[in-house]
């Protein structure tokens, strides 16, 4: 055995070029597999990030009756905290739960403004300004001014909406709305920021005001209409859901709240499952392709060495020993290649998961009318790297067996002849 190991080592060393090429091929294959996984998860997250950020969160806490009346922007079924003690302590409590990244309150209501004789219908969100900026990517969409500040009569609107209203940052705007007691009221706010977002909803209908202001004008006490929660990734929503439910049950006896995962909150996100399925299929195809690249490399190497095998047979090595030799060599190549692949793939994914892939330049000119967020963040996780490593090592080692077995079975003279 030791002899075989030495021989294998010598073989690898002797054909440096071949070894390097194989290792590189395996590394790249493993790296691509690891990176692709991270990318797929990142892509899935980002495709639906708009919904997550502006509609459903990863999880959403609402009053049970609010569910179907949400589109009506009803104010009669608010989230008023545990036992009605206010939404903010509830948000804090939820945020401290395990697996919860951030939780934000939102108070959604309908409003109108009438520049001249027209009526512009709007969608108002009372938000915690700082947290809202952390929860969404709205900050990068500011083209003018800044976000509202808590406790100030300030408002931020979309460009489309400002156009319709014929207003700019610095002007004041009077909105009219129906408060929670069905009374028709009006309030004036100072416009402090302008958002340009490619989503028509945000650009043409939405405005932000501070949560406290929304609560005051709508007479909503310390309530919101919903709490949105982000876990680390979309897929973890299912795990976090029971924890939030537990917290709510422990602190609120009224049983009025429901916790919805993103796909429960927005049934259209069921499409996400389809996307996930498709991407998984593609991922499997990718693994297949990576395997083929590795297999191909190994087949080339073994084939090239048929002559050598014949020689070894002639020198008295048994088939089994030759097979072992090839497996040792293959495993070595596999492990080393996969190791480098895992390291580089992991590093690349990790790096880009923090810095993102900016495809602004790729998008430029191609689709100017959609000023979307052109940065994609792959998701890094260790299991994925380990999986890539093991996959690479095993596929390589296994791949050696078949051609090597065939070669090892050849009669020495056949093998020698078959150059």
């Amino acid at each position, binding site marked *: 055995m030791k002899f075989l190991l030495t021989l294998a080592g010598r073989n690898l060393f002797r054909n440096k*070029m*071949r070894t390097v*090429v*194989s290792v*590189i*091929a395996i590394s790249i*294959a493993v790296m*691509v597999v690891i*990176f*692709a996984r991270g*990318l*797929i998860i990142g*892509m899935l997250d*980002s*495709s639906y990030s*708009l919904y997550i950020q502006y509609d459903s969160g990863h999880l959403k806490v609402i009053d049970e009756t609010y569910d*179907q009346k949400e*589109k*009506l922007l009803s104010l009669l079924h608010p989230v008023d905290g545990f036992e009605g003690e206010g939404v903010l302590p509830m948000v804090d409590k939820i945020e401290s739960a395990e697996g919860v990244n951030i939780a934000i309150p939102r108070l959604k209501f309908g409003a109108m403004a009438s520049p001249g004789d027209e009526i512009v*219908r709007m969608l108002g969100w009372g938000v915690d300004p700082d947290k809202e900026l952390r929860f969404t990517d709205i900050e990068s969409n500011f083209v003018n001014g800044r976000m509202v500040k808590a406790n100030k009569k300030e408002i931020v609107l979309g460009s489309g909406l400002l156009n319709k209203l014929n207003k700019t940052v610095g002007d004041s705007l009077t909105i009219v709305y129906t408060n929670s007691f069905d009374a028709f009221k009006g309030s004036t706010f100072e416009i402090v920021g302008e958002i340009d977002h*490619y*989503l*028509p*909803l945000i650009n043409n209908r939405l405005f932000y005001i501070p949560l406290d202001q929304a609560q005051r004008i709508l007479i909503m006490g310390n309530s919101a209409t919903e709490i949105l929660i982000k876990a680390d990734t979309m897929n973890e929503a299912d795990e976090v859901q029971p924890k939030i439910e537990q917290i709510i049950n422990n602190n609120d006896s009224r049983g009025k709240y429901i916790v919805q995962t993103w*796909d*429960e909150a*927005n*049934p*259209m996100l*069921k*499409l996400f*499952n*389809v*996307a996930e*399925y*498709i*991407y998984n*299929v*593609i991922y499997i*195809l*990718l693994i*297949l*392709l990576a395997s*083929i*690249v590795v297999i*191909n490399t190994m*087949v*080339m*190497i073994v*084939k*090239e060495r048929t002559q050598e095998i014949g020689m070894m047979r002639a020198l008295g090595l048994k088939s089994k020993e030759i097979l072992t030799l090839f497996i040792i060599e293959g495993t070595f190549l596999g492990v080393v290649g996969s190791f480098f692949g895992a390291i580089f793939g992991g590093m690349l994914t990790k790096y880009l998961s923090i810095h993102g*892939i900016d*495809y602004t330049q*790729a998008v430029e000119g191609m*689709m100017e009318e*959609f000023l*979307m*967020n*052109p940065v*994609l963040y792959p998701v890094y996780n260790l299991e994925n790297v380990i999986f890539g490593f093991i996959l690479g090592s095993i596929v390589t080692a296994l791949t050696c067996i078949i051609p090597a077995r065939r070669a090892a079975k050849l009669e020495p003279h056949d093998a020698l002849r078959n150059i």
Partner: protein
Amino acid sequence: MFLTKLAIKNLTRHKRRTIITALVISFGIFIFLVSDSLMVGMRDLTLNNSINLQTGHLQVMNEEYWNEKEELPMDNLIDQNPVILEQINNIINTDNYTSRLQFSASINNGREEFPINAIGINPERDKKVFNLEEYILEGDMFTEGQNVVIGKGLANLMGFSVGDYVTLLFRTKEGTFNTIDAQLTGILDAPHPEINEFHVYLPLDLAQDSLNIGNKVSKYLFRLDNRDNSIEISNKLNTFFNDRGSSLQAYNWEQLSQELLAMIQQGNIENLVMLLIIIILATVGVINTVILSALERLEEIGMMKALGLKVREIVYVFVIESAGIGFIGSVFGVLLGGIGVYLMSTFGISISTMTEGQTTFGIPIADKIYGGWEINTFIFIFFFGIIISILASILPAMWGAKKDPVKAIYHK
């Protein structure tokens, strides 16, 4: 010519090597095509939901109506004129059109009311554009009379079941209240939340009578043979309308589903990234195989050099060989991919297993996803396979050809 012949002879002589390298290309192309088809299929699933249930491929309405369409106004309706409609149909070259009348109303169960979008449809014609009927969960689509069909979400909210009577309350154009008492003939469970929760479908003539608006409708909706023609046809129609000084305007599906499109655009970029990764991986495979075979053939290269072939000529032989391999690989890859895509687009891939057990939330997305395809992708990847193969061969060939012939021969 001699060199070309030599290259071709090399290809047939080393069948196995040729096949192995070609295999990587074929597989790469196959996987590329299948992935692309899946992703296009996924995009179409989303788009088709919207097109088949809500927008159609093309809509014609008054320009002023378009500007206020969210309000579902009773102004700027289309006074249906068979002559104009025929002219439109001639331009579009289709009979797949329908007209709808939309108005806001509230649905009432005698205890409470809920605001909804009421949509007057002609079920026979509507079928030619929309596939609403396929999603009827209980009961049937009405044909005429005092009947309505609503979504499952709305039915649950209001506590309606098939056979119940519902009341719609709304204002006519003059602002006068009117009501419609109609029997619920069917409940929809469409893969579209808005339809499930906010739409009430009723016979067009019932809607028109109750609103006192004669035969007016909000808009015409069309289904085209191919959704890609939508923009071209809408432009043609608009030229026609403008020439006649008509206030009508045509709107293509891209204008009709902007929000969706924004999402899809983002998805497209991501799909491109994915395809790029597949290409990179396949390219690495090809390059790798070529390098290894060049290594293996250092002896041969040495021989060729010894026989007086110039570096350029040796590289040429290798390039022609690679082009041959690329061609073989691309042909097989495209064939294989074509078969795969054909199967997926014809029979679809079942995805119902995934959504099973979750249907309580009321969205049967679709049982199957069908692969989509574009001829351009096939052409692109076919040539790409050949080009990559050629490019991959140049460097190793140059490297091998520059080696000292003696060293090359005794390389082993």
